[in-house]
């Protein structure tokens, strides 16, 4: 139980940081809202023929992209603690080895709740209308949170192996940006070259977007090239991906943390 208590103290620290530097929270939420507005009005024309308009397909895409960015945020936060020597101090304390990393992933997860609520409201204002009912909508958001949470474990690992917070943030984005665009998030995959279509279809971002669309009550008309497993069962595939990501990165991160060194 002490392990959980220790982790929650670390999470509390992150929330305390938000009250001391409120700008962080403001800009963390402004950016996704800006994306909602830009995509909604720049690419809105792509939605010709889609019931309810492009915004219905866009919102799940932007939700997924935003929670995927958690990877970079987590990595940067942890790398900063490494740089400052804070991880050394934490490691010299009689606390559970998992506390610092678990605490941080929980903190970033909580931040995602705020971000998703703000984005959901922004989406609603510009015409997003999920049709599946409260239970399925909540389930959709829960799955989005869980997706972000699993990716933040990849961020933990990246933060632990990096030596520089700014570098790790930039590298993470180099990795996430293509992943979110080589998907069904913003445009139909059927217009991509054949090889990319296969990649896009198996891309965890696509399966998560398709799952969210399904849970919010929309037929996923973007990105079904064949009757492949991920496009037939997006929810199940996404869950498998999340378990897989955490199954790889949690043990790697905890092991790495044990020998983590600030220099």
């Amino acid at each position, binding site marked *: 139980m002490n392990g959980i208590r220790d982790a929650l103290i670390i999470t509390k*620290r992150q929330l305390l940081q938000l009250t*001391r530097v409120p700008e962080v929270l403001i800009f963390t939420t402004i950016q996704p809202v800006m994306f909602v507005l830009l995509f909604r009005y720049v690419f809105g024309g792509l939605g010709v023929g889609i019931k309810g308009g492009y915004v219905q397909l866009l919102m799940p895409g932007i939700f997924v992209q935003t929670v995927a960015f958690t990877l970079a945020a987590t990595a940067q936060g942890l790398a900063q603690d490494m740089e*400052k020597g*804070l991880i*050394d101090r934490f490691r*010299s304390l009689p606390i559970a080895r998992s506390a610092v990393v678990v605490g941080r992933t929980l903190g970033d997860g909580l931040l995602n709740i705020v971000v998703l609520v703000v984005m959901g409201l922004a989406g609603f204002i510009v015409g997003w209308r999920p049709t599946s009912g409260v239970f399925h909508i909540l389930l959709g958001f829960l799955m989005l949170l869980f997706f972000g949470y699993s990716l933040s474990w990849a961020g933990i690992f990246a933060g632990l192996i990096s030596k520089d917070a700014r570098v790790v943030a930039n590298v993470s984005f180099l990795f996430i940006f293509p992943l979110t665009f080589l998907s069904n998030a913003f445009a139909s995959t059927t217009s991509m070259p054949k090889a990319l279509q296969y990649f896009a279809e198996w891309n965890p971002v696509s399966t998560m977007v398709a799952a969210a669309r399904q849970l919010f009550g929309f037929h996923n008309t973007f990105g079904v090239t064949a009757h492949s497993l991920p496009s037939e069962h997006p929810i199940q595939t996404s869950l498998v991906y999340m378990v897989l990501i955490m199954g790889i990165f949690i043990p790697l991160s905890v092991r790495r943390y044990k*020998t983590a060194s600030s220099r």
Partner: protein
Amino acid sequence: MKSVVAENIVKTYRKGAVLALDGLSLDVEEGTVLSVLGPNGAGKTTLVRVLSTLLEPDSGHATVGGIDVIKNPKGVREIIGLSGQYAAVDETLTGWDNLVMFGQLYHLSGAAARQRATELLAQFSLADAAHRPIKTFSGGMRRRLDLAASLIIRPKVLFLDEPTTGLDPRGRMEMWGVIEDLVREGVTLLLTTQYLEEADQLADDIVVIDHGRVIAHGTSDELKNQVGGERVEIVVAEANVSPATEIIERVTHGQATVDQGLRKISVPVSDGTQTLIAVIRAFDEAGIHALDLALKRPSLDDVFLSLTGHVAEEEVVVEPGKKKRGARA
């Protein structure tokens, strides 16, 4: 009783390419201060990291407070305090926030953590700045807060890794004052430093290390004696340099060296104060006025030079929170 014992610690980095600790052994008697003195890259930080359980050695054996650092690292963490080369605190939070958080991580209750934070902030003259973000602190204040954070549980053994590196002279004096207070309270302290005067000022015992090995061990006095005895140094007016040199050589039976530019005459002596008095008497009789007159003992700089064959490296000024260039110290 020995509070810290390290035996034959070997630690290599990069799969053996860099030998940081090369069979290093030392111990610290309970309630005393041991200073580990050495230049950058000598292995000081690696040693502290091994003893504070942050790093597992390749081989060797170490105990802190009688607890094995390899077999029971958690037991060691419960009785030590560690303060590193840069302030390891959350800069976005206030000093108060930091101390309360660390108190809770030491499993104090919320109320106990808050009370301890108040005590420590007062003890380290940080009460006025308690509710300011650390970002606004001076380098000296950050270090004091960092030290405060390592004292939350009143550790049995305290490790300070270069506590004044990068501080300005004023910050360094303040830090020394704080450390001297702790020493008076009887804390067992292992302190690394590359400042020879710091070891001289704070430590009971000094271990000099270079390239991961102990190259000398003793009190400050013992180390100075090891290098060589005392010297009498006298400065006289220009006209008096040669008669004064004759008198000095006659009285001390030694070979004097003369710096004409500084008009300084220097001679090795065996029984320092006695000889000094004899020299003064002889000068008085001859009517020579000494402008400056001193009994000089070798500095730790001299110790280092004679032990390693090279001078202690120049200090590297590190901005708090910034990465340090170069090798592991």
